[in-house]
């Protein structure tokens, strides 16, 4: 991802940042007085926390948030066109780090694992650049991201394995029957065919828990794991509305690929 900035697939997380900017602008009234992310609410939420947790948490009303997102949108576009290999793209990526850090702090709640991984990738990139941005430093950054993605899948898989709901094979029916993440027709289908739910639960757990194999297995196996991952995240976007995970996780797959190549 960092080591091969010319690859278009290395820029996927910046498409996620474009979408993030659009979504936050759509929610701009929530950052104004009386909104759920109003400065007074954020003041309440961060009261009593350490000073570093409160930085920018109640700074700027909706106009500041919109301005930050316009900057993020433009900077993300620059990276999508230019990559993170040249000074302009590097500056634009660091700009995305600043704007996304501001909005994360200004919002505090309502975030997702996709946003978290995106932000971790941006901070890791800043560390790589602070260390000179050499090819070696970029490889180290890629390895760190690959390790985080692998940890994410394994931890999620083990947590599911320990869950009676996931083990019983009814988790997907439950999730898809909610209004927030659901698809009524899909939930009804799973109720009618519980075997499909059981198979889906087991497939997700098996794929997540065995993901580390992808890094050390032969290249066709690695490709199969990553293609399955892309299909999984696209399905979650379509069925559950988890749109940002596609860009965040698939955006880090080039780092997994680069690390697996390095290990061979």
């Amino acid at each position, binding site marked *: 991802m960092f080591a091969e900035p010319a690859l278009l697939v290395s820029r996927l997380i910046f498409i996620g940042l474009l979408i993030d900017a659009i979504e936050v602008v759509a929610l701009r009234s929530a950052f104004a007085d009386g909104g759920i992310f109003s400065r007074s609410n954020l003041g309440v939420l961060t009261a009593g926390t350490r000073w570093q947790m409160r930085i920018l948490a109640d700074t700027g009303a909706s106009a500041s948030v919109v301005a930050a997102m316009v900057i993020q949108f433009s900077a993300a576009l620059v990276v999508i066109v230019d990559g993170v290999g040249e000074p302009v793209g590097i500056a634009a990526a660091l700009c995305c780090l600043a704007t996304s850090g501001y909005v994360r702090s200004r919002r505090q709640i*309502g975030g997702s694992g996709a946003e978290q991984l995106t932000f971790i990738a941006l901070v890791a990139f800043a560390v790589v650049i602070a260390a000179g941005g050499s090819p070696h430093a970029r490889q180290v950054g890629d390895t760190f991201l690959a390790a985080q993605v692998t940890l994410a899948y394994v931890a999620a898989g083990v947590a599911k394995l320990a869950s009676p709901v996931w083990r019983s094979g009814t988790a997907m029916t439950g999730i898809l029957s909610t209004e927030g993440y659901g698809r009524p027709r899909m939930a009804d289908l799973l109720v009618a065919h519980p075997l499909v739910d059981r198979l889906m639960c087991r497939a997700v757990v098996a794929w997540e828990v065995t993901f580390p194999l992808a890094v050390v297995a032969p290249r066709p196996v690695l490709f199969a794991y990553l293609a399955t991952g892309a299909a999984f995240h696209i399905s979650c976007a379509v069925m559950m509305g988890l749109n940002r995970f596609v860009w965040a996780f698939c955006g880090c797959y080039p780092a997994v690929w680069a690390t697996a190549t390095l290990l061979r």
Partner: protein
Amino acid sequence: MSVQVVLIVAVFVAWFAVSVANQFRSGALTARMRRHIPLGLIPLWTFFAPNPARADSRLIWRAEVGGSWRDWREVHFGFGSAGTRWLVHPQLISNKAIADLVNSLLRVDARTEGADRSTVLSSSYVALLSIVVDRSASEAGCSAVQFAVVRTSRLGDERGMSLAFVSEVHGVSAPQLVGDVR
């Protein structure tokens, strides 16, 4: 290998080690680190586990106007349309924000079992109250508010609803953001 590369290897190894340790939620050390490190840089990757969402948490509230209580209303931001939410889904952020506050509130409430004032004094309770009081500002003559959390689910034709939490009644007056406990 240059000094800078050795340094970032050290930074990333430490960061990853703390991230791994954080997956074991019981660790006191990682809990302390999470309180010091901002912006979610120490991740907890569980994704719908161990307890996947099986119901929607909904925040409802009511206002007292002229001595009588109005009907319960929901603080609702809508759900994304199935046709577009795979691409752009801002409602997910608002709904997740309410869910985060509600889950935090229910955790505090379960821990204290109402034995002390911890629930009412928790930041999630005060933030939810603040959201409700903001909404009551458009209610002329509102003298008090109360909120509740209900869990709704649907499976086939069956609809389920359970009451998860009911707040105290809070008196409000126009210039105040957050009311006093009655």
